[in-house]
Every structure is written in C-alpha cells, then in structure tokens.
C-alpha cells in the first residue's frame, strides 16, 4: 500500500499549486482574473492534499470518508474553469451556465454523505478505488459540459483575436484545461489507475508556461526573480554542505562554531561570486532589460554633456535601435516656428530622411498628445478615432513604415517629441516588455531633450541680447528721456546720468554728478516723502517741479524704481525722467477751457430750466383764466371755484420760484443776510409741524430729537427753509407710505440734523454734484415732479452761511440720508 508512485503525485501537485498560489498572491492581485485563478489553485491544492489523505488511509472506511470530501473540490474545478474562461473573455459568454454551475456545487454538497455519489471503496491493484453511485453520472456529464464550454469560450476568443500574444496565451490555457478533463475520464473507471492528479500537475505546468511566456497574469518578473533566488541559494547551499561534509569526514568535528566558521568563509569567498552570479542571472533571465539599462545608463551619462539637439537626437535613435534591435528609428521633434513634428534624426534607414511632416493640427498628433503610452501599428488600424486620419497623415506614416510609435512627454504631459520604430531585425513583433522599456526610455529622453532645448534657447537669447545691447546703447545716448541712477539718501546724489538729463535740466553731466538732487527741486522738502513712497512701493510714477540752471521751472514725469539687495535694503534708485512742461501747459489750458465750457453749458441749461419752470405755472394760470373766460361753455359754481383755486396755487408756486431765484442770486453774491437768534430745534419743528404734515401727507414721519439737545443760534426762517426743502425732496423721491425720519444729535459744538428716507437712493456718481448750483434734480430721479434744481443749492448756501456743512449718504435701492450741521450757543 505504501507505494511511492501512488502517494507522491498528489503531494507534487499540491506543492506546485502552493508555489503558484504564493506567486500570484505576492503579486497583490487586483483584477478578477487573478482572484479566480487563485481560487482554482486553492481548489487544486486542497483536492491534492485530501487525495493524499485518502490514499494514505489505513482502511477502506477512512478512504471513503476522505473521498466523499474530495469530490466537492473535484467538481468545483470545472465550475471555476468555466468562471475563469468567462473572466478572460470579459464575461461575454453564457452567464446562466455559471449560475447553474454554482447551484450544481450546492447540490453536490447536499448529496455528499449519501451513497448516491460515492457508493463504497474497493481495493484495487494500485490502491483505493471509489465505486460511483447512481447520481454521479449526470453530475459527471454536467461537469464535462462545463469544462467543454470553458474550452469552447476560450477557443472562440482564440479565433477572434488577432494579437499573437493573446492567442498563444489562450492556447496554453486551453491545453492546460484539456489535461485534467482527459485525466478525469480515467477516474470514472475504478479498474484503471487514477490519472486526474497528473492532469492537475499538467494544468499547473501549462498555466505556468503561459504566465512565463505570454504574460498571462503579468507576474513573470516575480517568477523570474524566484527562479533566480532559488538558483543562488542552491549555489550557496552546495559548497556549504560540501564543506560541512569535508569537515566532518576529515576533522571529525561537530561543534557549532565550525558551522559559523564555514558560513563566514563562504560569505567571504562567495561575495564576488554572488554578484557575478546575480549579473549572469540578470543577463540570462532579463537580458533585454539588462542591455537596455546598461545602454540607458551610458546614454544619460553622455547626454549631460551633449547640448546640441541634433547630436542628442542621433545618440538617442542609435540607443533605441541598439537596445531594441530595430531596423530603423526616427526621432520627430516640433519645429521652431510652427510646432509641426519634423524628422530631426534617424538611423538604420538606407535612404536619406524623407521630408516627413506631421502637422501640429493633425488628428494623429492630437491623439498622441491626449493619450499615454506606446502605440503600435496594429493598434493604429484598430483605434476608431484614428480611422478617419486624413490622407496626408496616412501617407506620412506609411513612408516611415513605423511599427511602434513612442510619444516623448514631459512630466506634465506635454508632447515634446515622437520616436518611431521600424520593424525588428528579427522580424518579430514588439513585446509588451519592449513597450514598457520604451515608455521608461521616453520619460528619460524627455528630460534630456528639454535640457538641450533650453540650452539652445538660452544660447540664442544671449546672442540676441548682445545685438540689442548695441542698439540700446545708441538709444540711450540719443533719446530725449532722461535716465539716471541716484543714491537713496534724503539729499540724493546722481551716480549716473545720460545726455538727455543735461539737456532737460540745463546742467552739464559733471555739474549734475557733483550736486545734490534736492538742489534741483523747487520744493526740496518733498524728497523725504518721495523716498518713503519708492521704498514702500518699489516703483512709482511721480510728477515733480524742477528748477533748471537758467532758473526756469519745468514739470517732469519720472518713473522711479528702487533697486534692492537680497535683504531688501535699497541700494539706489533708477529713474526715467521726461520733461512734460509743454504737455502740462496744454493740459492746463484744456482743463480751463473745459471748465469754461461746462459753466457756459450749465448757465444756459439753468436759463432754459428757469424759463421752463416759470412758464409752467404761468401756463396753468393763463390756461385756467382763459378757461373761465370761455364764452361757449357755462361753468358751474364748483368748477369755477376749483379753477380759481388752481390759479391761486400756481401763482404761489410762481412766487416761490421767484424767491428761490432771488435766494440763489443772494447766495451767489454772498449777500445772504441772517437774523440769528437762540432757538431750540423742537421749537422750530413745532412751528413748521403743520407745513410738514402738508408736505408729507402720504408718508410716515418719525421725529427722533433728544430733549436735551443744546439750543441753536440760527436764522429760524432759513433753517425752516432747509428742513422743509429736504422733507419735500424726501417725500418726492420715496414711495407713498414709506417712512421719513428726522433725526438730530449734538456733535461737539454743533447739532447734526438728518432727514432719512426709504426711497430709491441716488447713484454714487451723482451724489457729488447734488449740491451744485445749477444741478438739475430731475436727473437724479426720473418720473418725479421736478423742481428748479435750486432747492439743494439754496440749502447748501444757507447751511454754509451758518458755518455748517451739508452732505448726503445714499445707497441705491435703500434710500438717502441728507445731513447738515448747525451752530449751537447764542448765549
């Protein structure tokens, strides 16, 4: 019974399964395919271990017990195969079959203890042979369906794919899956030796191959490394064991320190051997990478010294060609003026570089700019956005005959170049590994390229600057702008002046350099202020009066810059100075003229306003008078009274207007006479309560006047005029029913009175002119009855005659607050 050929295979299968499983898990699986594959491996390992337990059972009962467990795992494998095949083809298959598969597993779990599945165990020539129950046959059939469907799925994907690597990968998995299926067939017949375990071993072997050769789960690097470490440990273990054996045989010592000594000696001897081995192993297992790394290393050392773009380009294409063994390599870089990609360097191609231009605006370049990674010629045919490439692009690409396109991008994603690789010398296609190497290489190249480009830019700039310096010198000598450098102390000394400075100021260069800057100032005390400003702001534009040598005053405009050291200390001032005396004069004249015109305009506007305002009440008076005089109509008594009332009111209005105009005339002439007396504000308010009530019939008036307000020393009638005018305005310019507040408070030796309304407010650009003599109130608020435009300027005149001030605070949409101050006292 203890036959090695019978017991060993499950253990081998388990061991291989475990190694693969660890490799997959160490790789930190992220994708679904990794997980499903791991599940398959776990199942195989468990299956193998339980099989081992079954085969090493002491009696039939025990063997039956284990066999009834192992069948779960046996049938789990086809389900998982099917699942794996679905994942590999991105779930584009029969998903219902998968659900049925899992339901089927549950059924087996339920039926497991009965003899419907495994009836009993018999002892065959090779070991224990399970006799299958009745239910087993449909189950096995379904398992076959699953397995075959899995293979069918993969086969379909194999036929649909035109990518060599993927096809090979799928082929290996199909072969791998066939083995356990064929192996399981022999399991059905108890008389034949059970082969499914070998099938599992073959499955593991083939999937390992697929992984190694065709990048199945992208873990080949890890496997390579594992193999390498295994080799190295073997190479270390052999001399170690050898030495121990020798020591024992010849010296017959077995103390622990001999072990330590051996390790020490080995460590010393094997140290160089180890690194040599590592290099060898790297070469053997990672040859491409090794070559490439060495080449890249050499290239980057050289590239630091290459500042010529063309030379760098040539090195670059040689490097790429050598590392990847391509037949030809082109390097495209953006042209200086248009930015189109043009061939800068090429290698391997027999014919001279054709004039190939990839336009900056072309679809192809745009695509490269927005996508990462390497683009193969095959992909070029598949990517839908590139299907509609214009003919010019297509023919350009065909001319190069590129098989692989490698965009060179800066870290922030800008496209700085393009490498195009021709066919491989071996006529094989480029591997993913090659693609990755190229991506790494292109990252590296982008830095070198940028460096070289910057260097050539700087070089060009230096040349250009030298040329412009020549020109500039002439400019400074001949220009009418004074240019100077002066010390930053309160007096100031010129450190350097240009000829124009002498011309502007009338002093010779030598005189200027020997005198203080303040000697030139019309007001020398202004210098300190200027210093502070320049230091604080670094650069100021400043107008200043200077006195020329001949004594005439000139107006100058200077841009002054403070030159500071790294600690912020001002070293000196650089200035550009212009004589603007003439412009100033012209501007002054222009301003005066403008004011005159404005005054004229306002005067005629006033005349027209006054005339209009005088005519308006007159029109009513004349109109209603002639109405009453109509001979063709007989007016009733009420009508006649009403018309006469209107005539009366309009006559009053006319009188008021005339008195306003007289007030203005007085104020303008400074002839406003005040008869001042001591009054309380409350007193004044009481005396006009009736008039106010009349003015503000449609508004809510609120009085906020403190009782302890000091008494005023004013002309009562004039103050009433001001308050009434402000109240009338407030009522005019705020909606009916809104609140108008009169507020008063003592401020130092004055009383401040405010009239606050909740009207539409006054635009900020208008508040400035509001109290101007000829300002027409109409502009402030359209849609309201207009006055003469004199009210506020009369108020201003009255308040100012009292020695007070009047002003307005207003916010559009919120209302206005007119305030004025009046003097207190009179005792």
């Amino acid at each position: 019974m203890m036959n090695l050929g019978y017991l060993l295979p499950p253990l081998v299968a388990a061991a291989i399964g475990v190694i693969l499983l660890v490799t997959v898990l160490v790789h930190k699986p992220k994708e679904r395919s990794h997980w499903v594959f791991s599940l398959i491996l776990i199942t195989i390992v468990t299956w193998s271990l339980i099989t081992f337990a079954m085969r090493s059972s002491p009696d039939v009962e025990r063997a039956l017990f284990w066999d009834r467990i192992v069948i779960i795992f046996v049938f789990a494998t086809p389900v998982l195969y099917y699942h794996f095949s679905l994942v590999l083809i991105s779930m584009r298959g029969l998903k219902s079959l998968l659900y049925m598969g899992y339901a089927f597993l549950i059924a087996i779990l339920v039926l497991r203890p009965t003899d419907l599945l495994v009836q009993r165990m018999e002892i065959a020539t090779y070991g224990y042979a399970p006799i299958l129950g009745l239910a087993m046959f449909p189950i096995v059939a379904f398992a076959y369906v699953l397995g075959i469907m899995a293979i069918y799925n993969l086969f379909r994907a194999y036929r649909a794919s035109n990518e060599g690597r993927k096809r090979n990968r799928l082929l290996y998995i199909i072969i791998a899956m066939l083995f356990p299926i064929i192996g399981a067939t022999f399991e059905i017949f108890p008389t034949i030796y059970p082969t499914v375990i070998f099938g599992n071993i073959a499955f593991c072997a083939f999937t390992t191959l697929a992984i190694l050769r065709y990048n199945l789960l992208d873990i080949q690097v890890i496997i390579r490394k594992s193999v390498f470490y295994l080799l190295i440990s073997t190479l270390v273990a052999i001399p170690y064991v050898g030495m121990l054996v020798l020591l024992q045989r010849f010296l017959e010592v077995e103390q622990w320190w001999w072990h330590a000594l051996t390790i020490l000696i080995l460590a010393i001897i094997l140290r160089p051997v180890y690194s040599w081995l590592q290099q060898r192993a790297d070469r053997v297992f990672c040859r491409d990478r090794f070559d490439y790394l060495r080449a890249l290393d050499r290239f980057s050392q050289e590239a630091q010294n290459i500042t010529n773009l063309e030379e760098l380009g040539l090195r670059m294409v040689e490097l790429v060609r050598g590392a990847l063994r391509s037949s030809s390599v082109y390097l495209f870089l953006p042209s200086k003026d248009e930015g189109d990609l043009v061939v800068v360097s090429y290698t391997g191609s027999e014919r001279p570089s054709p004039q190939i231009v990839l336009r900056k605006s072309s679809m192809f370049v745009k695509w490269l700019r927005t996508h990462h990674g390497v683009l193969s010629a095959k992909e070029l045919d598949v990517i839908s956005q590139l299907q509609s490439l214009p003919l010019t692009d297509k023919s350009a690409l065909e001319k190069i005959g590129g098989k692989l396109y490698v965009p060179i991008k800066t870290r922030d994603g800008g496209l700085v170049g393009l490498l195009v690789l021709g066919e491989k010398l071996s006529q094989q296609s480029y591997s993913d590994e090659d693609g990755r190497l190229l991506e790494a290489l292109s990252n590296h190249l982008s830095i070198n390229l940028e460096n070289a480009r910057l260097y050539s830019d700087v070089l060009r700039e230096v040349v250009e600057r030298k040329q412009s310096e020549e020109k500039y010198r002439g400019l400074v000598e001949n220009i009418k702008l004074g240019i100077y450098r002066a010390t930053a102390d309160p007096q100031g000394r010129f450190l350097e002046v240009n000829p124009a400075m002498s011309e502007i100021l009338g002093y010779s260069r030598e005189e200027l350099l020997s005198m203080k800057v303040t000697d030139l100032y019309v007001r020398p005390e202004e210098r300190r202020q200027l210093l502070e400003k320049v230091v604080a702001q670094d650069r100021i534009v400043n107008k200043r009066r200077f006195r020329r040598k001949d004594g005439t005053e000139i107006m100058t405009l200077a841009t002054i810059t403070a030159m500071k050291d790294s600690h912020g200390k001002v070293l000196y001032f650089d200035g550009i100075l212009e004589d603007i005396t003439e412009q100033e004069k012209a501007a002054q004249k222009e301003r005066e003229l403008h004011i005159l015109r404005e005054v004229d305009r306002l005067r005629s506007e006033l005349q027209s306003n006054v005339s209009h305002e005088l005519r308006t009440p007159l029109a009513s008076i004349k109109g209603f008078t002639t109405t009453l005089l109509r001979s063709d109509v007989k007016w009733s008594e009420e009508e006649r009274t009403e018309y006469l009332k209107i005539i009366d009111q309009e006559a009053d209005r006319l009188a008021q207007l005339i008195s306003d105009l007289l007030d203005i005339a007085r104020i303008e002439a400074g002839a406003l006479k005040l008869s001042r007396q001591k009054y309380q504000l409350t007193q004044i308010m009481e005396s006009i309560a009736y008039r106010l009530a009349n003015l503000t019939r449609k508004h809510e008036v609120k009085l906020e006047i403190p009782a302890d307000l000091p008494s005023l020393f004013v002309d009562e009638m004039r103050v009433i005029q001001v308050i009434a005018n402000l109240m009338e305005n407030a009522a005019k310019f705020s909606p009916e029913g809104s609140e108008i507040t009169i507020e008063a408070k003592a401020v130092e030796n004055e009383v401040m009175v405010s009239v606050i309304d909740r009207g539409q407010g006054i635009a900020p650009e208008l508040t400035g002119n509001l109290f101007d003599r000829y300002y027409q109130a109409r502009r402030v608020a359209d849609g309201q009855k207009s006055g003469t435009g004199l009210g506020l300027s009369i108020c201003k005149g009255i308040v100012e005659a009292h020695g007070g001030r009047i002003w307005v605070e207003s916010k559009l949409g919120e209302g206005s607050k007119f305030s004025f101050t009046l003097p207190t006292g009179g005792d």
Partner: protein
Amino acid sequence: MAKKILVIDDELPLRQLVKLNLAASGYEVRTVTTGQEGLKLAEQEKPHLILLDIRIPDMSGWEVLIALKTNRKLEKVPVVIMTASPPTQEDEEIRALRADGLLNKPFSVEELLKQVKTALGEK
C-alpha cells in the same frame, strides 16, 4: 362719435386744464404722465390726436414723437407739441419734420382749441 384725444403731460394742473376744456368741446380725452404709458395707450386706443409735452419724466417728448411717427399703425395720427422751453435749433428741425402743431406754454384755451381743430382737419 366723439373724437379721441390722448394727452401726454406730467403737470397735473395742465392735464386737468386740457382735459376739461377739450371735454367741454365734445372730445373724448385720455391723459397719461409718461412717454411709455403714452405710447402704450396710443397703440391700444388709436386716438385721433395726440397732445405731447416735451418735458416728460421718462423720455424726451421728441423721442416719443419719433416713436409715434415711425410706428406704422400710428404714423398718421397727428401730434401737437406742447412746450414751455424756448425751442433750440435741434428741436426746430425735428418739429419741422414730424409734428403737426405747436403750442408754446403759456397758451390760451382759444389757441388750444384752434390747434386741435387744425390738426384734426376740422377747419
């Protein structure tokens, strides 16, 4: 049927004056205070005559006049201008082009009725 007259003026006494006198002479009178209201009402009511003050709050009377005279539905409606301002050169030009009558404030009722009748073509 009484002829409809639209009066556009922001001065209450003047509106009253014009309205009661024209009503007494047998016209149907509607009054408004702003140019916008005037244009709106003119479109709705299609008056036979419009009396238009030049100084009205929301827009210049001249603008109203131009708006009326460039409106295809209203261009035939005669407009009499009422103004208290001494006419400027510019005003003269516009008036010469567009208006059908002019009343300088102050005016007598007689003058008013005469202008209205002339503009309506009743005399």
